[in-house]
């Protein structure tokens, strides 16, 4: 077996080697930087690389080790961070013209926690503008390309984070998931991506899009890495009023490959005619693999899922219209130079030039859905449907340990193919939004390839039962080779 090149290593492998003195943090960071230099011109996974800071931090860690000091659990590990998570001193753009020059004066809680464990922020990754998209095409900095096939989208909105991992330009990555934005690119780039239970990871320092739906989530090349990253970023934070006080675990310490007795429900709505046959084929064979490993499955129905996508978009746009009201170009952000003009026209201009078309679309539609006369028809009705869906999931997860299906209804498609048709693009989120509406945790696991294009399986679990999702992922990964394959990228 060939040993992986330095930049291909998993975090857990690297952590072992650095502790045994077999590698230095500086050599490893150089290897990552050189890899990014040679491939990112094609991929465009990063908006900002933080190479200098990263090398400095790597030397620090090497000195710590030389002195025999204690080092953190992620010592030296290169983490790519989605560009909507605030990093002190490193610009954080949300892939928007609006925040092109915004340099946060503070760290998000998840970043503080990474630094406490001696992780290294290698750069800020590309995304759909303000996380509004499914393809990473709405970025002000141009689209990210899928490392498996450069003419295809990498998924979104955390497309840069997933592509950076698939192209070995980083070892771990953070994304955010409002309606599938971690799981979709994980599926399209063949990496593992998890949306934690709402409230389990602090949103302090995450630039808000739809705050009742979104969570920061880990992306990784292996389940063990994903578990390690989650255990570092998770846990109560008094800076986030929706943070839940639950103990955090080192989830991966107790993994087994034994799924005997695990009960999986398969909602038939996850396999209906909107899902491409090729996707169904790979997901079914993954489910049979889980069966071989001892799991039992049963087909079920969650009838309200039919309304999930409409309800999701109404709620997300409504929250967006409120959250993005803060961008007036005064305290930060894009500001046009018209001092003498009427203030409301200055704001309106700042926001026309500062925001891209999709962001403007969602703000205006959200404002509409919340406006007098339409509030009950749209927003309030969507919230009622949200409750119906939650009740159905609650009762299904009393009977089953987890629910499974595809992550995306179709394999990665061409860049440019759907971007001019918003509604068709929204439809791609049909299988991922239920976990955000309910707040339940969900993971996407690489489960096959259609030609050279990755297919992902989604598992949804009970609230705060991430351990079970990771357990299933671990068992599947250990008995298949999908997560180990590399794109033929030169």
């Amino acid at each position: 077996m060939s040993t992986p090149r330095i930049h291909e290593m998993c975090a857990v492998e690297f952590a072992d080697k650095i502790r045994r003195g077999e590698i230095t943090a500086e050599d490893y960071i150089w290897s990552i930087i050189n890899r990014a230099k040679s491939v990112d011109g094609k991929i465009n996974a990063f908006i900002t690389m933080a190479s200098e800071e990263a090398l400095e931090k790597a030397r620090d860690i090497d000195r710590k080790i030389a002195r025999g000091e204690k080092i953190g659990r992620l010592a030296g590990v290169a983490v790519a961070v989605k560009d909507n998570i605030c990093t002190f001193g490193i610009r954080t753009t949300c892939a928007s013209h609006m925040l092109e020059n915004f340099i946060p004066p503070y760290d998000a809680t998840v970043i503080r926690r990474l630094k406490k464990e001696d992780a290294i922020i290698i750069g800020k990754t590309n995304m759909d503008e303000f996380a509004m998209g499914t393809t990473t095409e709405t970025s002000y900095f141009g689209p990210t390309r899928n490392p498996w096939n450069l003419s295809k989208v990498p998924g979104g909105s955390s497309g840069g984070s997933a592509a950076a991992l698939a192209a070995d330009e980083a070892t771990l990555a953070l994304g955010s998931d409002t309606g599938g934005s971690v799981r979709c690119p994980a599926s399209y780039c063949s990496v593992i991506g998890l949306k934690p239970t709402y409230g389990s990871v602090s949103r302090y320092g995450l630039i808000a899009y739809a705050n009742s739906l979104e969570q920061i989530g880990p992306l990784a090349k292996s389940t063990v890495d994903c578990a390690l990253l989650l255990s570092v970023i998770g846990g109560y934070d008094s800076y986030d009023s929706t943070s839940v006080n639950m103990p955090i675990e080192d989830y991966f310490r107790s993994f087994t490959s034994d799924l005997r007795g695990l009960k999986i429900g398969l909602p038939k709505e996850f396999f209906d005619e909107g899902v491409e046959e090729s996707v169904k084929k790979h997901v079914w064979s993954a489910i049979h693999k889980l069966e071989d490993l001892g799991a039992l499955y049963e087909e079920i129905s969650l009838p309200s899922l039919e309304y999930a996508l409409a309800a999701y978009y109404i709620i997300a746009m409504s929250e967006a219209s409120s959250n993005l009201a803060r961008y007036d170009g005064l305290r930060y952000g894009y500001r046009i130079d018209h001092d003498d003009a009427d203030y409301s026209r200055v704001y309106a201009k700042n926001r026309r030039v500062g925001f891209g078309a999709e962001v403007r679309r969602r703000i205006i539609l959200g404002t509409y859905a919340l406006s007098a006369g339409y509030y009950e028809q749209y927003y309030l009705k969507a919230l009622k449907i949200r409750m119906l869906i939650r009740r159905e999931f609650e009762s299904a997860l009393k009977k089953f340990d987890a629910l499974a299906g595809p992550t995306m209804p179709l394999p990665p498609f061409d860049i440019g193919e759907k971007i001019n048709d918003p509604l068709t693009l929204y439809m791609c989120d049909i299988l991922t939004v239920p976990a955000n509406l309910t707040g339940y945790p969900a993971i996407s696991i690489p489960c096959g390839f259609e030609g050279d294009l990755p297919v992902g399986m989604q598992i949804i679990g009970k609230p705060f039962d991430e351990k079970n999702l990771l357990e299933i992922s671990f068992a599947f990964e250990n008995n298949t080779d999908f997560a180990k394959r590399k794109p033929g990228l030169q």
Partner: protein
Amino acid sequence: MPARPSGNNKVKGAETMREKWITKEEIEHIAQLAHIELTEEEKEVFTEQFNRILEFFRKIDEVDAGSIPPMYHVLDIVNVYREDEVGETLPKEGVLENAPKKEERFFKSPRIV
């Protein structure tokens, strides 16, 4: 404000798919509320797109949700109180650092009155 083209934008009731759920005038009004300027071309494109999106949203009309309570949030959130103690705050320079226009220790706003 550019003059509105007359005649081609009837209120609801025109019931063409193009303006079945929302008219171009309504979009202009909502965009104004949201403080977003739109170009003429954008208004045309948004009118067509919004009507298709709203047509899709109206799928929720099929659900009879009369007695179902709305779910504002996934957690049973109650207000949390804390002592009113002064904590750490950002330094003034840090706060002003990202302001496109400032004067002394103030953000500079456009003319309000």
